[in-house]
């Protein structure tokens, strides 16, 4: 992968990839592998991008597809292997202020709650949190936009319940 392409076309959108990879990976090592694999796939499929949607939408789509396929591949692998890695938490460096510490704790718990959702629901809620429109979510996820609103309400309800449980614990 050329470093120019990475710097100009991927790095400005790295936040998207980071957010998605964190939601689908179980350890720091997995997260880094997912991130690299997504970047590689974006680079490999760059010629297929036809300007019909925004470049960021394209990145969302590839990131989700790659993470889903890596997750499925990983599930097929040795179960014991997964148990070993699932105990490693993703490391997040933190600033010292109280407020940012609280934000970090909350986001980690939110991610934990997101990880308890099904693979597809995870993708939908991530796109919703990224303020994507229902139409865009449907386009990226390859589903009908009419049902997205209902789905999001249901997912949010479940997520809120799980998050409250985690925060009170």
């Amino acid at each position: 992968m050329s470093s120019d392409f990475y710097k100009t076309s991927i790095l400005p959108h790295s936040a998207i990839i980071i957010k998605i990879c964190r939601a689908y990976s179980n350890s720091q090592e997995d997260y880094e592998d997912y991130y690299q694999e997504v970047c590689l796939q974006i680079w490999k499929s760059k010629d297929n991008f036809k300007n019909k949607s925004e470049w960021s939408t394209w990145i969302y789509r590839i990131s989700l597809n790659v993470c889903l396929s890596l997750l499925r591949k990983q599930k097929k692998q040795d179960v014991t292997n997964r148990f070993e890695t699932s105990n490693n938490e993703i490391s997040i460096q933190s600033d010292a202020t109280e407020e940012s510490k609280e934000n970090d704790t909350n986001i980690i718990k939110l991610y934990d709650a997101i990880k308890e959702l099904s693979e597809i629901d995870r993708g939908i809620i991530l796109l919703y949190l990224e303020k994507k429109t229902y139409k865009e979510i449907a386009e990226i996820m390859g589903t009908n936009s009419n049902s997205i609103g209902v789905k999001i309400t249901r997912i949010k309800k479940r997520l809120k319940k799980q998050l409250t449980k985690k925060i009170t614990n």
Partner: protein
Amino acid sequence: MKKSIEEIWSEGFDNKNFSIPPVIVNLYDKKSILTIDKLKAATKKDNWSIIPMALIVLIFFIIKSKVIFGLYLATLMLSLFFLNRKRLQFLNTINTDQSCFEYLSKIQKMIKNNVKFYTRLLGIGFPFLAYIGYRLFILGSDQKDHLLEIYSINTMIISPIILLISFSIIGVLSFRLSNYLIYGRLIKKIDEMIEELAFLTK
């Protein structure tokens, strides 16, 4: 819960550390070293499993009072163990400091050569060895006289040919099947990586 999910999400990413992308390292270097290690471990385990199998075969036929036949099979299995070990020594000479495309290509070539070699060995050599074993088995059998008696001249000529062909087919098929079951996934992974690396260098 004081904050909404949306607030937690947006505030969580205010921390710049959370949004720092990981450094892109040589993805394929890591992947290929891991695959080679797995291949080495699988071949070692596969080859060493021949030793206990040879012992079991030997003990089984000693108990069944077919010592010569048992010794014959155990010797064949041990020969296979040493032959495999010699052919697999190549894996230990792989230098992972080279570019991964280079050493993965070498391994791919080695795998292809080995498949060709063992297909020939099991397709041509194995039937003869198996036939000798079969004859030894009959000679060591209590029913030897009866078995030799019921063989007509025709069957004495035709049956070895049929047996040789059958052993050849069984040998090649069982090799291909076990190769696919034990190494199939790793070989596929190596092929995919080479293909991707070739694509990336374009």
